[in-house]
């Protein structure tokens, strides 16, 4: 079920040719040098083509239906993942998954928004848009991590918190705010990675990391480009303009200090090679995690406080 966006066609063809040659080279070792040459050339070419992408095209990549989701990364990065569920209050929310896992030699708490790949899956996952129960499960997991002194690895991929009648009845605003407070205060290392869509407050509830990483073709924004265009110009079709003005791409976010590092994606984007995307993320994630080694619980909380304390732009 290859889904191809118009602007990525040349890159997809290129990546496809490399993949074919790789299969041939598997059977015939003499093709190895040729494969290596083509791989390098394709990577360079793909990078060149994608270096000129418009912000809205990056948003489209972040929403690509073949893009790896949280559980795709869990499967590749972690051993012994055991999912924990429920908010102990009202319901289980499958748009946000979490649990315990082993990362290299360490036990960690993992958590992330989860989108569905089919319409049927999305009925269950609610397109990765949590209700309050999702955030209250997150709170449970942050507190569990704190009590057992386990690092938290969070994965952000949501269009936003669900804007629904029942979500409001059950306190969506309070649930998000409370999750932010608990995530800010726990005395363990926290690393957040934006792997796809970083949609507003619903993303931020998983975003209070000592380190915040972002995949190359992800975005993180206070409002969706469509929502912004609808408010400013009463025209959702002007989303590309809003995407540009809002400064939501990975390099913009790095410049504004809102993320600490950009994780390169495979040629053509993470959806072209889930394994390769996970290997690249693994290197950055592990580096971020071990950079926090040796800090006491109080130092970890203070480090997180200072990281967010300096964000903002004003004259004083």
């Amino acid at each position, binding site marked *: 079920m290859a889904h191809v966006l118009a602007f990525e066609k040349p890159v997809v063809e290129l990546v496809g040719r490399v993949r074919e040659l790789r299969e041939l080279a598997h059977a015939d070792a003499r093709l190895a040098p040729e494969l290596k040459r083509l791989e390098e050339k394709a990577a360079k070419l793909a990078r060149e083509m994608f270096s000129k992408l418009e912000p809205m095209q990056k948003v489209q990549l972040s929403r690509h239906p073949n893009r790896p989701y949280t559980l795709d990364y869990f499967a590749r990065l972690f051993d012994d993942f055991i999912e924990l569920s429920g908010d102990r209050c009202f319901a289980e929310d499958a748009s946000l998954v979490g649990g315990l896992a082993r990362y290299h030699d360490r036990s960690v708490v993992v958590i992330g928004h989860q989108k569905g790949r089919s319409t049927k899956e999305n009925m269950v996952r609610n397109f990765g848009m949590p209700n309050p129960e999702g955030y209250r499960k997150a709170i449970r997991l942050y507190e569990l991590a704190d009590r057992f002194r386990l690092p938290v690895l969070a994965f952000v991929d949501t269009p*936003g918190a669900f804007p629904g*009648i029942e979500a409001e009845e059950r306190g969506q*605003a309070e649930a998000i705010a409370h999750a932010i407070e608990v995530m800010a205060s726990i005395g363990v290392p926290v690393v957040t990675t934006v792997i796809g869509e970083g949609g507003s407050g619903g993303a931020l509830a998983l975003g*209070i990391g000592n380190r915040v990483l972002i995949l190359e073709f992800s975005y993180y924004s*206070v409002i969706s480009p469509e929502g912004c265009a609808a408010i400013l110009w009463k025209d959702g079709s002007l989303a590309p303009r809003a995407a540009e003005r809002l400064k939501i791409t990975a390099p913009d976010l790095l410049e504004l200090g809102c993320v600490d590092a950009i994780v390169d994606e495979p040629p053509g984007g993470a959806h072209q090679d889930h394994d390769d995307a996970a290997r690249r993320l693994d290197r950055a994630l592990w580096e971020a995690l071990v950079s926090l080694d040796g800090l006491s619980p109080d130092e970890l909380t203070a480090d997180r406080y200072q990281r967010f304390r300096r*964000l903002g732009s*004003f004259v*004083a």
Partner: protein
Amino acid sequence: MSSLPDKTPAQGFSNEKRSLGKGVFKKCGGCGSVLTAEALSDTWHVCSGCGYHHPMTPADWRRLLLDGGALERWDDHVAPADPLRFDDGKGYRERLERAKKQSGQTEAVEVGRAHIAGHPVAYGCYVFSFMGGSMGSVVGERVTRLFERATTDRLPVVLLHASGGARMQEGILSLMQMAKTVAALSRFRAVRKPYISLCLHPTTGGVAASTALLGDVNLVEPNALIGFAGPRVIESTLRTTLPEGFQRSEFLQNHGMVDRIVPRSEMKSTLTVLLSHLGGGRA
């Protein structure tokens, strides 16, 4: 995240003032009866006929709640920048200038030290007439400093919210103010002084989802709109019409999100009792 434009429809009230002979008359947003500005001013802008609470300015709130109406202002010098050079047809700087003129304020929140019935407090009040009370870097910084100073000086915090949410024109930096203010609040908890949150009409989006509902005690005004997603967003997403009273104060109390709905006439006495119970400590 609803960022309201800088016009303030509020409750369709200030738009309807008109001069008739010697006095200024206003039409009540609740019952429609015509009231004189003087009569409204005497009742803190509450309709004597139906009890409807019309919006008040931060200056009115100071006079209502603070001893002598006095606020020792903090951080007025923290002023907005234009980090994204945001332009949506009108430049952000131009919008800021207009908001300053309209509101008579330097930004969308005022903070400082004050007394409530003798209790010293760190006090803040959002300015809805300044770009819909939206939270950008300055609001985030002032509220963060409010909690930091309250932590250092061991003061209770009383914070009045009225905001459409995060300020779009500062993009991701405005989202980060939610993290910053809530993190400062979480540090403040350690000094065991009360944080009393008051939600005025309206409190939505990123402000609702940061400090507004995290009070040790959450108070709300009658009939205030409080919620994460704005009603228009929900209506257009779900293609439905919302039930009467949805996201209003009574709805929030029924769903367990707030402690009390407090009419203006009882606001100061309610705060005073809470401060005395929770160790506000008299000056």
